């Protein structure tokens, strides 16, 4: 049953992010960490629609996307913990790791920079016969970055198989997106590029899935790119340590009423799934993640003697 597996997949991400916070507070993880708590439906709804050979490019807020794409939790924990067994042996950290063997082509810590890179993955599929489509994820604020514009335009002009996913969580770091654009309906920008554009509920994995499926079909069919605006909210700070003083009173309470996990759980309960089963799904996810973190913590740190490897071929 898709909805139960969605619930599990989302709990897994939630559990992962909570564990990450715990490890950060305990100073096991050092440095900037951007959690996607509240935004789990996007990756979960999207990644089931991608084939293994498709390319996915995410941002610093990429743990959920990596997990949904199949990157093992343990390898990501180990990465953030600076372990040799980290998915990049500690080179990338929380905000800049990549796992191409899972079709997860990397986080990026430069806002918007991955969008043109994704366009290139699509360009490649014009000549390599792979049938690959490229998906690039970025935030609402990233749409104001020149590189994203250039990527959207090139994809539109060349009708490239790209799905641009904008996770609109209402804020660019600490600044409301509504104050930083002339038209807060960001999906409408698609028209400027001659590509399809839609705004959808980004807190419901099924809605996301349907929108992505349609966009992926369009891409695979050779009729071009799509800009999807997923409306969502992060229930936590921009990064760990964010005092969130920019929140309006009641904003988080309101957001909690629409957050994907509570919603899907309630929906499943209505359809008759037993509370105990729902609890079990959650417990399983937390257990899996706890074990992954445990193993990662037990692994040896990256070897400082290797720090100069792989700069050049």
């Amino acid at each position, binding site marked *: 049953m898709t909805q139960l597996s969605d619930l599990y997949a989302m709990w897994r991400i939630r559990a992962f992010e909570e564990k990450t916070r715990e490890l950060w507070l305990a100073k096991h993880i050092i440095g900037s960490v951007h959690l996607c708590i509240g935004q789990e439906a996007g990756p979960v709804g999207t990644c089931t629609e991608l084939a293994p050979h498709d390319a996915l490019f995410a941002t610093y807020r990429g743990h959920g996307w990596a997990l949904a794409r199949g990157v093992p939790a343990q390898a990501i924990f180990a990465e953030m913990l600076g372990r040799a067994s980290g998915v990049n*042996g500690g*080179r990338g950290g929380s905000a800049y790791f990549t796992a191409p063997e899972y079709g997860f082509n990397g986080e990026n*810590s430069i806002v*918007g920079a991955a969008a043109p890179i994704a366009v290139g993955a699509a360009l490649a599929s014009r000549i390599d016969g792979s049938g690959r489509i490229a998906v690039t994820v970025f935030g609402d604020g990233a749409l104001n970055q020149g590189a994203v514009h250039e990527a959207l335009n090139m994809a539109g002009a060349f009708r490239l198989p790209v799905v641009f996913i904008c996770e609109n969580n209402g804020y660019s770091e600490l600044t409301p997106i509504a104050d930083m654009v002339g038209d807060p309906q960001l999906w409408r920008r698609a028209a400027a590029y001659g590509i399809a554009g839609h705004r959808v509920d980004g807190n419901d994995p099924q809605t996301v899935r349907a929108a992505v499926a349609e966009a992926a079909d369009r891409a695979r069919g050779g009729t071009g790119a799509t800009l999807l605006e997923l409306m969502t909210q992060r229930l936590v700070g921009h990064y760990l340590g964010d005092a969130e003083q*920019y929140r309006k009173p009641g904003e988080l309470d309101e957001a909690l009423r629409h957050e994907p996990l509570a919603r899907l759980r309630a929906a499943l309960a209505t359809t008759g799934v037993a509370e105990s089963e729902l609890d079990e799904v959650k417990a399983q996810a937390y257990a899996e993640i706890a074990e992954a973190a445990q193993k990662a913590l037990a692994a040896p740190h*990256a070897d400082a003697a290797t*720090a*100069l490897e792989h700069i050049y071929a």
Partner: protein
Amino acid sequence: MPELNYREAVNAALAHLLATDPTVMVYGEDVGEPGGVFGVTRGLRKTYGAARVFDTPISESAILGSAIGAALMGCRPIVEIMWADFSLVALDQIVNQAANARYVSQGRAPAPIVVRMQQGNAPGACAQHSQCLEAFFLHTPGIRVVMPSSPQDAYDALLTASHVDDPVIVIENRTLYAGEKATVRLRTDPLPMGWHHRHRSGGDLTVVSWGAITHRVVEAAQRLAGDGIETDVLEMVWLNRLDTDAIVESAARTGRLAVVHEANRTGGFGAEIVARVAEAGVHLSVPPIRIATPDVRMPAAPVLATTLVPSVEVIADRLYAAVKGT
């Protein structure tokens, strides 16, 4: 004279400039309402209003370009690029636009902007948030560069930068913002640009550095003093205008030269310092050395990064070897 940390000193300078010069604007991403991701601009919007202190879209070209346009109209914008690394999405505006304005117009349309940015590695930071890019700006004629490492210099650098009629890049460092408080003289007359500090005087070895790593250099020099090695430690707060004479004088006197910077070694500004001393015909008794981050991308794991960015130990050992030949 108040006790301020580095962040507070920058804030005090910005407040002073906003208060005294109505053409000053302070803006950038998260700079206004939130007061900056490092809290540097806290309170300024409230006091000086949203027309002069404000947030921007994530659009570095628009931030820098608009600063130039405002400066061409007679304003004195002070804009923030959150990380020096991000300047690379918009370097055109600094190198192709701001740097040319005065020259091409024969002085009639200069673009005296101040660009604040902060750079360098901090524990856990990834390769895209760790670079030291001063060498790019220092290879751009028309641009001035200052790199304060103390609260007093942070204050003074900004005050001077805002009064200099050239575009000035003020490179701060986020590991310093919350550092120790120090007594800061809140001068109102800007110092002339180009100053440096001699942190120690000594005859055994000239050590030139700049930016946050100066703190490590000073500590290393202290350790060397314990071994009876007396170093002449020069912190070049301003890298353009650079006081080459001070460096040459010192190197000629000690006969030994070390340059320390956090930036990657090859093509770093340390090469320029070594070259200038060599060109000046200074006779060194031992070859000059550069102590720098090797030519590497910066890994996020602290256990890796700390072996790359020169530590107090590494600096002390290499300085020691430069003098004692081991």
